[in-house]
């Protein structure tokens, strides 16, 4: 199965197996990003002086950003384990960037077990086992996702409230959730 053929605009893929990170070994960053290097580096929030560094000396976060920068011109961008090394602030930035990229009719495919990266970002989620699609959904709250994938804390919280027969709507934003709790408690 070719990931590129999956339907959707920003797509989440949860694999059952380990995903291998792309590895450029000691290749210099300037030889990995072949087009519009300065613009691409700025877009992924990397300093321009990273151009002369070897890929294998970078942090995992920087490696992921370099890989994304190298694919910005592609029509289909596949990113494996993109959240590795990302801090919270950057997660939010990249979710917005993915939406912006997708608005130019490009397809983004995020392959990871870290489902928090999908929240408020992807439109379709696939579970894949041995290269076969075993499940497809557009519902973040679908329990089938959490057999293999890591459950985002806000969804875990809402599930646990349901266990106590407290029905909250399917919030993915903490501020909306707090308002809902406040309404119930008052």
């Amino acid at each position: 199965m070719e990931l590129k053929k999956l339907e959707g605009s920003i797509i989440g893929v949860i694999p059952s197996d380990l995903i291998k990170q792309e590895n450029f070994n000691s290749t210099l960053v300037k030889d990995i990003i072949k087009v519009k290097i300065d613009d691409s580096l700025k877009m992924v929030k990397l300093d321009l002086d990273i151009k002369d560094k070897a890929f294998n000396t970078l942090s995992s976060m920087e490696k992921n950003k370099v890989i994304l920068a190298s694919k910005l011109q592609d029509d289909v961008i596949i990113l494996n384990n993109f959240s590795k090394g990302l801090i919270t602030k950057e997660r939010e930035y990249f979710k917005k960037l993915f939406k912006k990229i997708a608005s130019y009719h490009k397809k983004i495919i995020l392959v990871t077990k870290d489902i928090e990266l999908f929240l408020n970002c992807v439109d379709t989620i696939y579970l894949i086992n041995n290269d076969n699609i075993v499940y497809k959904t557009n519902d973040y709250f679908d329990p089938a996702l959490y057999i293999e994938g890591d459950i985002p804390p806000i969804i875990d919280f809402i599930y646990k409230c349901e266990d106590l027969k407290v029905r909250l709507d399917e919030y993915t934003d903490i501020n909306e959730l707090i308002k809902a709790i406040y309404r119930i408690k008052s």
Partner: protein
Amino acid sequence: MKYEEGLNYCILSNQINLEFLKEFNEYVIIDDNKTYTEVLEIIENFLEKRIVFNESWYTYSKGQRKKILDLLALRKINYINITSNIEDTLLCDYIYVFDKDKIVMEGKKESVLKEEKILKRLGYSLPFVVDLSLQLNYYNILDKIYFNIESLVHDLWN
């Protein structure tokens, strides 16, 4: 950095590279290139007192992570978890927070995770359950900070 026997540590860092990892050369390091089953096997046969996880927890489901931690506790093995994910800090006892190669904060989980301003300056949020309980404190719905979802849900609705 010092690691006391019996405590589990989290190294929260925004710059985990080969240079950074040299500090942990004396330990067995579990990367994200090991499957969940392989990790369990390693722990089953592990003879040291401390193991290091390097940015690998995001590859496990919540249930798998619990099984790994239960097995570590059963075998009396402590861990150091190197991560950029603030949520991982909830499971350890002691946290070192790095900004690139410098320690900017350290302490018991309960004290470090109250330092919202410093964490935000470094680009981290608070863990979801800490953030939620802080805000529910603000609205007088709860009166303490929680570090696990189960306790918060229990106290919130009972």
